[in-house]
C-alpha cells in the first residue's frame, strides 16, 4: 500500500505540523490556479498516480508554469500520463498544482526500517532533489536510531555535522525533521520519503523546511493506518475484484493472501505456506492464474468460502486444479481438502460440470482422511485425479501439474469433457 504525491501528502504532513508546499487538486478552478501562481510566482503541475510509482524517468512528467494558460496546457498534457516502472505501467488520473518554493537548498530525507541495522534508519543529504544514488559517500548519511526513544533532535544534528551541511539549515531541520518519525511510527508507515524538502527563507532570512514531494508506504498489518481515514479507493488500483474478495477473508486465523498472476492462467493452484507459494509461483510461471498462500490452518467454513471464490473466478478456464503445500505443521489436511471438495461439488451443482484434472501434493495431520474425502468427491463428480504425499519432491509434483496442463491443452481436456457428458459448445 503506497502513496505518492502532495495531494494527500500535504494533508498527512499536517497531522504532525510539518510545513508543505501549497497544493491544489485536479478539480481546482481557474481562479484558484491563478491565485496560486500569483502567490508563488511559479507552479508545478504533476500527474496523479495511484499507489507506488518509481522515480526513474518521471522527470519528463512534471510541468512548470508561470501563467494560467501554460498551467492549463500542462494539465491537459499530464492528466492521463503514463509511466512505466518495472513491469507495470501506471496511468495517471488527474493532476495537482503545487506552489513553487524558491530555495537555495534542497534536502533529501527518508526514514525506513533498514534490514542492515534492523532498526528505523534515516537517510539524509542536503544535496537533495536529484537521484541520491549518484551522490558520494560523504555527501549522504544513513543513521539508525532506537525505535523506543524515537528520532531525537541530536540524531539529526549529528547526522548533518557528519556530512558537513551548511549551518543555516541545521537548526530548522533539527526542529522539524523529528516530527516525521511521529508521522511514520504512529500511523502505520513502513517508509517515508520527502525529496525534495526546500528551505524557504522568510522575511528575516530564516529558513523553514517545506516538503515539495511525498512518498510513503503503509503496513497492511497495522491498524494504526485507519487513524488517517484514508479513502479505500486510493489503494484500490492495486487490487483486482478477485483479490479483493479473497483478501476480505484475511484474518489472523489462516492467511488468505492472493495475487493474480495471469487472468487467463490454466492452472488454478491454491497453495499452502509461504515457502510453497514462492516455489510454486516460480515454477508455474504464466500457467498459473493466481499466486496464493492459504495456510495457517483455516477453519472449514473459511477454506470453503475461499475455494468458492477461486472457483467462481477461475475454474471454467482451468485445466488443472492443483492443491499444493509442503508437509503441513498445523493445517488440518482433512478440513481443508474436505472444504475444497465440498466447494467443488457445490460449484458443479450450480454451474454445471467443467473438464478438470485434480493434482494434490500435500502432507500433514489427517492426510489420508483428507485424500479420502477429496477422492470421493472427485469420484462422485467423475473427475480424474492423482494425489501425492510429502515423500514426493514438491518441485517434481509441480512439474507434474504442468505436464498435465500441457496434456489437457493437447486434447486431454476434450477427453475429460466427453467423459463428463459436456457438450463441446459449453466448453
Amino acid at each position: 500500500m503506497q502513496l505518492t504525491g502532495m495531494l494527500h501528502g500535504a494533508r498527512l504532513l499536517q497531522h504532525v505540523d510539518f510545513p508543505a508546499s501549497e497544493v491544489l487538486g485536479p478539480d481546482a478552478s481557474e481562479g484558484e490556479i491563478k491565485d496560486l501562481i500569483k502567490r508563488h510566482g511559479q507552479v508545478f503541475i504533476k500527474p496523479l498516480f495511484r499507489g507506488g510509482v518509481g522515480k526513474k524517468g518521471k522527470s519528463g512528467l512534471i510541468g512548470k508554469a508561470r501563467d494560467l494558460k501554460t498551467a492549463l496546457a500542462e494539465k491537459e498534457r499530464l492528466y492521463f500520463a503514463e509511466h512505466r516502472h518495472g513491469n507495470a505501467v501506471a496511468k495517471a488520473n488527474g493532476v495537482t498544482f503545487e506552489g513553487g518554493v524558491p530555495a537555495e537548498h534542497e534536502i533529501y530525507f527518508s526514514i525506513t526500517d533498514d534490514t542492515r541495522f534492523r532498526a528505523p534508519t534515516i537517510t539524509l543529504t542536503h544535496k537533495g532533489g536529484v537521484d541520491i544514488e549518484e551522490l558520494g559517500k560523504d555527501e549522504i548519511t544513513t543513521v539508525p536510531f532506537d525505535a523506543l526513544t524515537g528520532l531525537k533532535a541530536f540524531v539529526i544534528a549529528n547526522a548533518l555535522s557528519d556530512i558537513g551541511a551548511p549551518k543555516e539549515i541545521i537548526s530548522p531541520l533539527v526542529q522539524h525533521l523529528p516530527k516525521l518519525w511521529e508521522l511514520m511510527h504512529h500511523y502505520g508507515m513502513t517508509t517515508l520519503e520527502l525529496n525534495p524538502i526546500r528551505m524557504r527563507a522568510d522575511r528575516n532570512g530564516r529558513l523553514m523546511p517545506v516538503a515539495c514531494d511525498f512518498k510513503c508506504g503503509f503496513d497492511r498489518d497495522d491498524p494504526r493506518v485507519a487513524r488517517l481515514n484514508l479513502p479505500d479507493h486510493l489503494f484500490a488500483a492495486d487490487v483486482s475484484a478477485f483479490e479483493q474478495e479473497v483478501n476480505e477473508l484475511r484474518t489472523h486465523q489462516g492467511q488468505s493472501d492472493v495475487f493474480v498472476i495471469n487472468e487467463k492462467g490454466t492452472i488454478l493452484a491454491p497453495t499452502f505456506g509461504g515457502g510453497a507459494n514462492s516455489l510454486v509461483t516460480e515454477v508455474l510461471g504464466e500457467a498459473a492464474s493466481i499466486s496464493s498462500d492459504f495456510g495457517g490452518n483455516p477453519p472449514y467454513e473459511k477454506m470453503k468460502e475461499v475455494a468458492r471464490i477461486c472457483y467462481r473466478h477461475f475454474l471454467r478456464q482451468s485445466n488443472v486444479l492443483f492443491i499444493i503445500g509442503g508437509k503441513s505443521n498445523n493445517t488440518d489436511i482433512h478440513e481443508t481438502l474436505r472444504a475444497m471438495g465440498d466447494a467443488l461439488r457445490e460449484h458443479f451443482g450450480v454451474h454445471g460440470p467443467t473438464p478438470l484434472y485434480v493434482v494434490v501434493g500435500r502432507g500433514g495431520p489427517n492426510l489420508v482422511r483428507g485424500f479420502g474425502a477429496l477422492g470421493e468427491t472427485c469420484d462422485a463428480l467423475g473427475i480424474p485425479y492423482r494425489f501425492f504425499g510429502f515423500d514426493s519432491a514438491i518441485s517434481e509434483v509441480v512439474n507434474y501439474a504442468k505436464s498435465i496442463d500441457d496434456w489437457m491443452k493437447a486434447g486431454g481436456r476434450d477427453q475429460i469433457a466427453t467423459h463428463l457428458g459436456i457438450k463441446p459448445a459449453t466448453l
Partner: protein
Amino acid sequence: MQNQGIGGFPYYLGINSLADVATRADRVCVLNILGGESRQVTPTSHVFSGGNVVFGTSPGRSGQSLKTAIGNIPVYNNVREGLDAGHAFNTGVVYLPPSGVRDGVAELIRVNPDLKKIVIITEKIAVHDAREIRAMAQGKGVDIIGGNCLGVADSWSRTRIGGALGGDHPEESLLQGTVAVFSNSGGFTTTIAQYLSTEGWGTTTLVSSGKDVYIHYAARDFAHAFRNDGRSRAAVLYAEPGGYYEQEVDFGKPVVACVVGRWKSKLTRAVGHAGAMAGSGDRAEDKERWFMQAFGVDGLYTPENPIVSRKGAVVTNIAHIPAALTAVMKLSGASPDFAPRGSLSLKPWIANDQGIELPAALAIPPVTAPEPYAAQIAELAKQVGVVIARQNMKDRSGASVMDSKTQVTSVHGISVLDLALEPLQASFALPLVHEIAGPNDGALLDIAVAAEVNLVGDPILVAADAARDAGNSPNTVMAAAAAVVGPKRVARALACSRALIDLFAGSGLKDGRDESFDFGHVKVDEATRALFMAGADEADDPRPEAMLKAVRQRGGRSVFLKFLEALGGRPSRDALLAAISTTIAWSPLVRKRISRLTAETLPWYLRLYGVMVGASIPGDQHQPGSLCGISREERFGEWTMADLCFLAITGKKPTEDEARPLQMLIGLLISNGPGSISAQGAKGAVSADGPQTPDRVQINKAMVGFLTHTGYSHGGNGFEGMAFLLQQFKAADLKDPTDADHGLDLKAMATAFAKSYKAEKRSAKELGGEMRALPGVHHPVFKGKPVNHDPRERFIADFLAARGNYNVFHAFYRELVQALYDTGATPYVFCVNVDAVIAALLLALLWKDYKAGTLTERDLETAAFTVFLYGRMIGAAAEIDDHLNRGRNMDTRTPEAACSFVM
C-alpha cells in the same frame, strides 16, 4: 539489568553456538498457551522435549491446565503469577494475537530477569511493533527468534521450542546428523530436513526464522552460532527476496543456499511473507549473487550443471539441495551421516483416471505409501460406497430441488418432467441409486415390487380394509398397511443385502448385471448360506420360483441371482429381493455415488412400494395366485409398474394408450421439493428416530410420516379439478374424451361459465364474501403477463400434441382461461396450471367407467388421491434416504424463538 552479549557484534547477540538454541536445559513459558494453535502444538513439543514447558499464561484462566501425555502444564493469568508460584524459565514462546505480541514481549522481558530468549510464532505483526520489540530486546539483551516463524528444534537434544516443526511426529523428520538448517519458510524447514535424509544427511539444529520485515534472528546471527557448533559440519539456508540479511555473511563452513522468488519482482504487494517484497538491490537475483560470491562459484547448481565449491553451492530449486550438499561435502572428502532414507521421486499414493487414457509418462501407478499411511489408505479402499458428512437437514435436501423460475422440481438431478416420460419402474429405484433404471433393472424392479403387492392372508390386508371401511382417506389406508412393515418384517432381507455386499465388496465386480463375472472366489460360510435359503415357513410359498421364472422370461440379468442359484438349495423370497436390489445398487455403490447404508436398505423401500400399492386394492381382490383376477404368472412375467397402478385404480388391465398417460401423471407428481408438507412429514419421521444411529430408523414409519402429511388439501386436491370438470361436462353428451370429434362447442361452454363466474365474483365482492378459486387455473408464480403459462403444463401439452393425443378436458381449460379474460372476469389470461393437466388426464382415463356407472364420484376422488400417492411415495423415498444419510438427530425441530403464541 542488561545482559552481556557476544563481543564483536554492533548489536546484542546472546546465542553463541547452535547447540545452545534448543537444549534440554531450556525451561519454557508459553504466552496464550490455551489459544487454538498452541493447544495443538505445545503438547507435542512438550512431550518430544521431555517436558520443557514449565507453565503458560492465559488471562482469566488461572488454575486451568493444558493436558499433555506426560502430565498437565499449569496455566496462570500472567507471567508474574507463574514466577510467584515457584516456576522458573529462561525461554518465552509467544502465541498471542498480533496486537498483543509487543506487550507480551515487554512482559517477558520486564518481569523475568532470567529471560534469555523468546520465540515469536505469531504472524502479521505490525512493523511498528516489530521495531519496538527489537529495541526492547536489544536494550535488555535477549535473543528473539521470529516473528511469523515455526520455532526451533534440535535433533541431537530432541528438543523443540515454539512451533510445529516436524508436525505431529517430530521424531519422524528430526533425524540426528550434521547439517544445520536455517529457513525463511516454516513449512520448508521440515521439508528440507526430509529431503536431506534422502541423501543420507541428518540435522543438528533447525531454525525457522520467519520472513517478516524484521527477522530478529537472522542469517548473520545464525552464521556465528553455526561456526561455533562442533556438531554441525554444514548448513542449508533457505532465503527469500527482501532484506539485506544475507549480504556479506561469513559462514566458515560449507553451506548450500536455496534462493527462491525471482518472480516476486513482478509483485506490488506481499503475498504470505511480509518481508519478501524486495525493493531494489535485495531481490532474489541479488541474493543469489551474494551467496555465489561468498562461496566462490560463478553459477547456480543444477543436476545438469553441478557448480559447487568447497565453500558451498547456490540452488533455486529445493529438490536440488540434497544432491548439492553431497557434492559440496565430497570436495572435502566428507560423506553423509547415514544410508539414504527414501527418495524424492514422484510416488502417487492415490489415483483414479476415471477410465480416461493418459500418456504413459503421466499415468504413474500408485505406490504403497510409507506406514502408517499405507494402512490408512488400505482402510479407505475397503470402504464401499460414499461417506457423507452429516449436517442439519431441516428444510434442506440433497435429493430434490425446485427451480424457482420454472417451479419444476428435480430429483437427483433429473427433472420430474423428464421422469414423467420414463417408464414408471425406471423411477422406482431413482430415489436411492440416483440413476434412472435401464430396461434390465426396470424389469427386475417390476418383478421385485410385483412380488410384494398381493397381500392375501397377510394381516396387513385386514388392517388396510378396516381403515378403508372406517371411511379413511386413501393415504390413511396406506399408512395402516405401511405401519405393519416394521423392522422384523424386513430383517432377513436386509441381512441378505448386507451379506451380499460384504461378499462381493473386494471382488472387483463393477456392474451387477455382468453375468460373465466369475464369482468362484467368493466364499460363503454355512451361516450365510443358510441366511439365503428359504426356511420351513416358506415351504408352500410359490413366489421364489415364480420370481426366478419371471426373470428368465424377461431376460433379466443379475450376478447376484446367478450367485444365489449357484448355491444350490431354494433361495428365499427375501434373498431374491435382496439380490435384485443389490444388482441395481451395485454400480452406483462401487462408483461411490451412493452410500452403503442406502444400498443395504433398498429392499425395505421396494417391499413398502409393493405393500402400499397392494393396500390400495380392496381385500376381496387379493386371492391366492391372482390379483383383481390377473394371474401371478402374468403379472410377474409381463406387467409393468404402471400396469399395476392402473389395475389398482380401475381394476382392469390398461392398454398402452391408457398406461402412458397414467405413467406421465405419476411421474409429474414424484416430488415438489423438500418444502412440501409430504416431504416434511417424511423427514421429520427420520429426524425423530435419529439418523445418526441409522439402524434405529424405521423406514416404514418414515413412509407413514409422508402419508400422514398428505391430505385432502395436499395431494387429495387433485379431485377438485375433476369435480369442476364433471360439473362443466354434466350436461354434455361426451362419449370419448380422447376423440377430437366430440361435437361440443367448448368455446361456448367456457364463455357461459366465465360470464356466470364474473357475476358471482361481483356479487361476492359486494357481499364481502370470499370468492372461490378455480381449480386448475392460475398460479402465484406464473402470473402478471398478458398471457401466462405454467411451464409444466406446456411441457405435457407439447408432448401429447406431438403424439397426436387429444384431451377434451385439457382443451376446455385452454378455452376457459381465454374466455375468463375475454369476458373481463380476469385482468389478463391466467395460466392453465399443472393440476388442470392432472385432472384432465385422469378424468379422461376414467370417464368411460364413470359414465357407465362402474365408478362413482367418490371413486374418482379416491383415484385422484391415490395417483398422487403413487407418485409422491417415490419422492418421499428420496427424502427419507437423503435425510437418513445426511441428517442429524432431531434436526427438523423448530427452535422456540421461531415460534410464537397466539391468543
